[in-house]
């Protein structure tokens, strides 16, 4: 009996492994195709840099490619590491200047409304039209389904994201910041988003800050920035609590 049970378990394990191998084997070409298409679209962005309409059109196509890939090729059963690696591979051509933006970041989390993946990346559009994207997908019927995005909140800005400790474990708090591209100086936009597996909610949306520096803290974050009107530096500190985000300084 024990043997039988072991045999069944072994069989199940073997079957699972075989299925995973098969799915990976079929997924690899799809991943490669998606990466190839995104690479081709990216090259078009370089050629059509001066054409604003074309820039937007191609950026939209890249976003759609990423969405299609996540929805059709990624399985919620896959580990977080595998999901990250596969998405990064697809977005390998979207690597902005490190001084201004993060490389593509994939976050996988078990959230209130199910297992979710949040993808943040910048579509590189020369010479300074990178288009930040934060999109989220939730498990649905054995697949990931598009749940929502922050839209074009960061259009005209670069993009850095940091996970901030959330009040509860079933939501993801994502602190996004970016620097304005054609601003003469250093102007930052910050947003704190909460994602519960269903939709994004904006928790914090301050006015743009000049010469800002962000510091992550165990219970929140602080941001120092230049108050040009009063020619002084302002430090704001925020703490995440069960009641939400509270400014403590």
């Amino acid at each position, binding site marked *: 009996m024990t043997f039988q049970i072991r045999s069944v378990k072994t069989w199940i394990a073997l079957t699972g492994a075989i299925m995973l191998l098969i799915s990976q084997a079929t997924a690899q070409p799809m991943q490669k195709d998606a990466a190839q298409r995104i690479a081709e679209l990216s090259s078009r962005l370089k050629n059509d840099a001066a054409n604003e309409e074309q820039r937007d059109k191609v950026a939209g196509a890249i976003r759609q490619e990423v969405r299609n890939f996540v929805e059709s090729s990624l399985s919620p059963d896959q580990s977080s590491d595998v999901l990250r690696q596969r998405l990064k591979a697809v977005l390998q051509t979207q690597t902005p200047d490190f*001084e201004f933006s993060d490389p593509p970041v994939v976050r996988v989390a078990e959230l209130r409304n199910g297992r979710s993946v949040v993808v943040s990346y910048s579509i590189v559009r020369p010479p300074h039209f*990178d288009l930040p994207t934060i999109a989220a997908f939730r498990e649905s019927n054995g697949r990931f389904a598009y749940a929502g995005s922050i839209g074009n909140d960061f259009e005209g800005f670069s993009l850095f994201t940091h996970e901030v400790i959330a009040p509860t474990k079933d939501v993801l708090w994502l602190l996004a910041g970016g*620097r*304005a591209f054609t601003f*003469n*100086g250093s102007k930052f936009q910050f947003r704190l988003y909460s994602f519960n597996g269903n939709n994004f909610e904006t928790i914090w949306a301050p006015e743009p800050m000049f010469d800002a520096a962000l510091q992550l803290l165990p219970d929140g974050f602080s941001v120092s920035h230049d108050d*040009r009107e009063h*020619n002084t530096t302002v430090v704001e500190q925020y703490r995440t609590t069960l009641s939400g985000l509270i400014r403590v300084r």
Partner: protein
Amino acid sequence: MSTRQQWSLVCVLGISLTVPAIGAAQTVVTQLTLSGTTLPPGPLNVTSASNPIVAGGSVTTRQRYPLAGLGQIPDGSIIQEVRLVRISSGTFSPGIIRAGMRPLISNGTSTMQVVNGGPGPIAEPVFGDLLEVYGVDQYVVGGNAVFTQNPFTNQPWTRADLDTLMSGFWVRWYNTTSDPQSPQRFSINDFGIEVVYVPLTLTVSPPKLALSTGDTGRFLTTTADPSTASISPTFTAGITTNPNSKCLATLNYAANSGVGTVNSVVTATPAGCSRIADNVRANIGSNQSTNAARVVVPPQVMIKTIVGEAGGQPGDLDQQSILVVARNRFGDSMFGNKSTWQDVLVPGDFYGASDPTQNGPDRELSNATAVFTGEVGDIVAGSKCYWSPTFDQWQVVQQAIQLGTTIFPTNTGAPACWSTNKRQIVYKASIGLNQRGGNYQNAPAFVFVRQRQSNQPSAIQIP
């Protein structure tokens, strides 16, 4: 019938104009012409047909002809004298008659007669008058009368007086025969009415007036020569341009009067609009200023930007350079293909554009004007972005300049323009140090960024 029959004639003369040489504040003597063309040019020929010869000293017709003085004396001139002068030749035929003649002056209502050079009541000329014609080609030069003021009002002459002034003269002669000779023919040449005046010369200053649409105290000064002239100048403008602006301002010149010098406040509306008005001249009637001014109203957003961005910087170059950066973005598809100051100078790209300044502080107004008119060219080597580095960042930039490296340095604080392309830091040595102090002390107020080729250094210095 008397053997010494008297004939009288009132005749009127048309005189050609001699164009005077006009010089500033110099007295000018000019001859006036009659208005209209009722008399033929050249010597006046009076016959019974056209101008009756009246016998017996009984004057029944006194035709008087107004002078077109108003248009012949420049507006604003100070009239010093009106002279009835210069009968230089005359004939009378048949030539056996002696005659006397007196010039007449009339204001259209009253008439005065010049008697031996001075005004007097009208009466028949008498034999022995200073101005006499004796016969064929026998005459004396005479008729001079000088009026230093209007003899009817006893006030200084005005230009309007010259249009009401009428002139003629009365001739009487004796027929030495027993029978009057009719028709008689009397002819004289070159009767002149001279006006002595000091022409008004106007100048306008300053040569360039800059103003903001929020300014209410900037003015053009009109100066009259002679300085005793009362003037109420108006203004006209020539060519208007409005480069790279979304709306055209209207200029308003406030009416003002004064003696010698008048300040006329110039304002511009609507707020934020702009204009370059060239060949702006002060006018007194048709008399225009001998020089012209340029009135420049830069778009208010240019002033706002440099007040907000570089208001504390002492150097004009500091302020001008950031506006030149903005101008360098015109028509560049990488910066939105914009073509107006209002579209380029937006708070999203230029911090200072959100400044609330509504008027034109002197230095900012002057610098905005210099860039708006193109007086200041591309002083930033084609740069389209800039930033204010801290001292630490400035040290990084300096090192890159010294090394001549093609690798773009990090931690310079440079803006994200061309963040995914090759770009170059341009340090303009004539830009002053940042006046903010603190972390910015001893660093230039602005350092610029432009695109480059991959083999060019990542940081350079220009004068």
